[in-house]
């Protein structure tokens, strides 16, 4: 019955056209560094006033889907994550491009984006009610523990040295403390600069660490030393590769579903956690960081799953879990629609339209991607002298759009200098990036927990979810220490012999 209604919607309303416009707009926004999914959606808001409520919501939701996917394109091609969630894709995506396998990398991200989108949509349709209850079980202590788990996983798996990983994570957390303290309103580490009152956006750090440091590192290096030229076409994964990617995509989808439910968690944590879990469970973990297809599949499946599952708390309780979900909430409110159980009863046609439009967008990703991506590959194969200038121009223009101030451009350049130094001294980027992303979540929930307990840390031992997550985090760190110790002993024995 509902399938028939969905078909009627497709044939009697301009739903397909609106979904495609939203998708393409979102991909464009996601592919431009600095234009986050939420900004892409916010730019569309004025157009939604004149649309019918269902079409307005579809336009915003499909832009969100497009933007979450679009972030992977510059991540793979120019080492610049278009969105926060695409940062994990840089690691293997750019490495594959470096090896002359950009078409394959883009094909894997496209395929994984579609898989993630479909899984997320299925979760949204089938499990909205039960999954929402799970989200409500999370208290501040659990969120704090979730942040610590995310950090410990990244620290223990992202480099050869646990200490260097931990130092990088703490540096990231330090950056996250800059700005106005949300609890007390006190300015921290702003040094009298009004531009720092809002803090340092994670995208500045990511673009600086990844893109600017890459431009610096490759400056003046002959093109022959920087990978091969390649055919300008996208290679969708073969059946054999699809079978290989199944495990990492399942991990990505599972983590994406879970993280989408958590207000504030979002696609970034999901993609980082998925990357590391995929590495841990992979049969070829040594390929990660050196151009592993699974290293792209896991984070891309994950953040595209989040694009749908993040709507679950929004539609069920009216809790926007991210900036993008908040824009969508704005779109609902503009049209007099209040999220919650009554939305499903009284405006079932709008919900059905949302599901149908999202489905159209996810499936169309494949077609749009196959058409658009060859042009992107052609672009990044232009002579290096001009390409470097264009990438720098794109990065600086994109960053300026966030707060329209040149101060942010300065922050990105400083982050680039730090990135270069980190690269030079062998510090991993990922823990620093995740530290910036998770800093707010970890600190605010730590302080909320302290407020709840009157300053007693024992409260973390009273919350079963927090105990579970912190125990896993502890095991990760200990496991990593043991592994590092064994490797050091092995190296010592080799030297003696």
């Amino acid at each position, binding site marked *: 019955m509902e399938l028939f209604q969905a078909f009627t919607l497709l044939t009697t309303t301009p739903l397909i056209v609106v979904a495609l416009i939203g998708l393409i707009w979102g991909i464009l926004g996601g592919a431009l560094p600095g234009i986050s999914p939420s900004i892409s959606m916010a*730019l569309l808001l004025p157009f939604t006033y004149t649309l019918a409520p269902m079409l307005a919501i579809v336009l915003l939701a499909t832009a969100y889907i497009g933007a979450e996917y679009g972030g992977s394109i510059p991540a793979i091609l120019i080492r610049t994550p278009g969105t926060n969630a695409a940062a994990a894709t840089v690691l293997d995506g750019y490495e594959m491009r470096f090896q002359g396998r950009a078409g394959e990398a883009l094909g894997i991200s496209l395929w994984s984006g579609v898989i993630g989108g479909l899984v997320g949509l299925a979760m949204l349709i089938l499990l909205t009610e039960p999954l929402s209850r799970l989200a409500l079980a999370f208290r501040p202590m659990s969120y704090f523990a979730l942040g610590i788990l995310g950090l410990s996983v990244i620290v223990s798996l992202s480099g050869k040295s646990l200490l260097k990983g931990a130092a990088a994570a*703490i540096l990231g957390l330090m950056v996250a*403390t800059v700005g106005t303290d949300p*609890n007390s309103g006190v300015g921290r580490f702003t040094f009298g600069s009004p531009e720092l009152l809002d803090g340092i956006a994670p995208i500045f750090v990511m673009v600086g660490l990844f893109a600017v440091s890459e431009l610096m590192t490759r400056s003046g*290096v002959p093109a022959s030393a920087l990978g091969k030229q390649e055919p300008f076409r996208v290679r969708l994964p073969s059946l054999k590769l699809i079978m290989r990617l199944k495990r990492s995509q399942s991990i990505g989808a599972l983590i994406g579903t879970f993280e989408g439910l958590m207000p504030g968690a979002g696609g970034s944590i999901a993609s980082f956690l998925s990357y590391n879990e995929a590495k841990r469970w992979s049969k070829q973990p040594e390929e990660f960081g050196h151009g592993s297809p699974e290293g792209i599949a896991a984070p891309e499946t994950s953040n595209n799953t989040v694009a749908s599952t993040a709507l679950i708390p929004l539609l069920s309780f009216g809790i926007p879990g991210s900036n993008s979900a908040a824009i969508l909430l704005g779109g609902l409110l503009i049209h007099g629609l209040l999220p919650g159980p009554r939305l499903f009863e009284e405006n079932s046609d709008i919900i059905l339209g949302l599901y149908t439009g999202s489905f159209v967008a996810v499936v169309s990703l494949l077609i749009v991607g196959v058409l658009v991506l060859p042009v992107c590959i052609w672009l990044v194969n232009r002579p290096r002298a001009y390409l470097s200038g264009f990438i720098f121009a794109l990065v600086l223009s994109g960053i300026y759009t966030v707060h329209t101030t040149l101060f942010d451009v300065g922050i990105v350049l400083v982050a680039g200098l730090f990135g*270069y130094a980190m690269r030079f001294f062998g510090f991993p980027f990922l823990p620093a990036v995740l530290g910036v992303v998770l800093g707010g979540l970890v600190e605010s929930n730590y302080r909320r927990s302290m407020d709840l307990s*009157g*300053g007693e840390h024992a409260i973390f031992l009273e919350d079963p979810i927090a105990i579970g997550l912190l125990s896993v985090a502890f095991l990760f760190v200990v496991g990593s220490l043991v592994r590092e110790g064994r490797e050091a002993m092995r190296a010592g024995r080799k*030297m003696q012999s």
Partner: protein
Amino acid sequence: MVIAALYFAATVQIPVSTLGGAVGPHAFPTVLAFLLGIIGVSLSLRSLFARRLVHTKDHTPSESEAKPLRALGMLGIGALYIPFAWLFGYVPALFLLITAIALYERAAPSWRTATIAMGGSLLFWLLFVVVLGVRQPQSILF
């Protein structure tokens, strides 16, 4: 260790607030400063120990990596974009940026380079300002 010390010095200056809750706005940064300090000491000790055991070499750039001075030059060109954008506005600053980087990356100084830089800056203006409708730096001169 230096970063930890500087960060701690700035943490001490965070004003105390009655709205700060049970632990206050300085608690988390203080923990971070101490943790980074401890890690800094550990890394230094480990590095000293490792150097005594083996004569480890400092990082030397491979053939696919630029030398540090050249890398800093690239960053310097990017930094010049800030005053140029402030003085001349978006399109001229972008034109200068693309041209300077192309020349720095050993493109020949020719009309072709200038045309590509001009085309690129207009393309970005079209994309960001016209299509997306987002502001870009405006000149203080004109």
